[in-house]
Structure formats: structure tokens, C-alpha cells
């Protein structure tokens, strides 16, 4: 019970921090009229990405439901839920980046990489600290909520790396043109 309370408290603090960072970014962008604008091709690509992420989450939920029915428990309910959300968000972001629709055409290409990188590093550091601290990542043979920092760290680093690679490709294509 106490462990759960600590986890919920930690989650709330982390969530509030991320929310605060995004709120600050939103306000800064609004003040400097840097609200992202997407052209028609980008909007279509984003719609497709939403669709793929939605169906991926649907498929994942069905697989999890089947596994649960077969009494195959691999993670706690909260963990299962969050891994699905994280996975579908990652899919959405990666598809958008690959189709040049993650950032608006009026935005600087590297603006989001810094934020993504910071969130990734913080979460990976928390995971490493937990690892050396002897935190348990399994409860009754199931992955528990403590693995969440690793999942979020991997999500944000993957998105940042894909964005970085795509920026390089775009830069080269613009030079070759």
C-alpha cells in the first residue's frame, strides 16, 4: 500500500512536471506567434498516423485481453495500460516524423529534439538510479510500474533519434536539390 502510494505520488509529480514544461512551451510559442501550422499534406499524414496509432492500440488491447483470458499475466494492469499508450504515442510520433508532419512548416526543425531529449534523459536516469537502488521491477513474476521510467525514456529517445536522423536526411536532400 505504502509502495503504491509512493508510486502514485511520483507519477503525479512527474506528470505535473511534463505538463508544466509543455504549458511553458505552449505559452512561449503563443507569445512569439510560433503556433505550429500544418499544410494539407502534413494534415493528411497526421490523420493517417492517428489512424495507425488508434488501430495499433486497439490490436494491443485485444491481445492483452486474450492473454488475460488465458491467465497469462506478464505485467500489472497499470503497466499494461501505460505500455499500450506509450507504444501507440510512439507509433504516431514516428510515422509523423517519417512523413515530415511532426512539426509544423513554420517551426524550427530542432525545437522539439531538445525537449524530447531532456525528458528521455531524466526518465532513463531515474531508471538507472532505481536499478542501483535495488528497486523491484517485478511483482509476483509480473512487470510492475517501476519499469515505466524505462518505457518513457525509450519512447522519448526513440522519437528524438528518429527526428534527428530525419532532419539530417532532409538537410541533405535540400542541399542536393
Amino acid at each position, binding site marked *: 500500500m505504502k509502495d503504491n502510494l509512493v508510486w502514485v505520488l511520483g507519477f503525479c509529480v512527474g506528470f505535473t512536471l511534463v505538463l508544466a514544461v509543455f504549458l511553458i512551451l505552449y505559452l512561449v510559442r503563443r507569445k512569439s506567434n510560433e503556433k505550429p501550422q500544418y*499544410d*494539407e*499534406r*502534413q494534415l493528411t499524414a497526421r490523420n493517417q498516423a492517428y489512424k495507425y496509432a488508434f488501430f495499433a492500440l486497439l490490436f494491443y488491447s485485444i491481445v492483452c485481453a486474450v492473454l488475460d483470458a488465458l491467465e497469462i499475466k506478464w505485467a500489472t494492469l497499470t503497466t499494461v495500460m501505460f505500455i499500450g499508450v506509450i507504444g501507440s504515442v510512439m507509433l504516431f510520433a514516428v510515422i509523423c516524423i517519417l512523413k*515530415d508532419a511532426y512539426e509544423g*512548416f513554420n517551426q524550427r526543425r530542432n525545437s522539439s529534439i531538445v525537449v524530447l531529449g531532456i525528458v528521455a534523459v531524466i526518465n532513463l536516469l531515474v531508471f538507472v538510479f532505481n536499478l542501483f537502488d535495488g528497486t523491484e521491477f517485478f511483482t509476483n513474476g509480473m512487470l510492475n510500474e517501476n519499469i515505466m521510467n524505462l518505457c518513457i525514456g525509450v519512447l522519448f529517445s526513440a522519437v528524438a533519434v528518429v527526428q534527428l536522423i530525419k532532419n539530417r536526411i532532409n538537410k541533405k*536532400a*535540400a542541399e542536393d*536539390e
Partner: protein
Amino acid sequence: MKNLKLKSARAALDLSQQQLAEKVGVSRQTINAIEKGDYNPTIKLCIAICQTLGKTLDDLFWDAT
């Protein structure tokens, strides 16, 4: 199918894809996709491109063959 007419009209005005994209209000990748034939623009975007390049829809987007 590649849109070479658009590419040559842009080149004739000595505009890069980025410059044309900024004038039209889209991303460089969108102009690139149209030139490569990977994206079919809406009539609204076609008109914006034509007006920017001083061409008609027939000049840039009509393929007689």
C-alpha cells in the same frame, strides 16, 4: 508521375523548393512531394502555386498525354 513542368517553372524564376514553399505557405517537403509525383495537391494549393509562379493550371498541372 513526376511534375517536371512545376520544377522547370520554379527553376525559371530561380526559386528553390524552400523559397517556393515559403511563398505558398507549405513545407519544402510538400513541394518536393508534388514535384516527385508522390503527392496530389488540392485545387486550392495548385492555384496558390500557379499564382506564385505566374502560370495557369493548364501550364503546370494538365497532362495532355
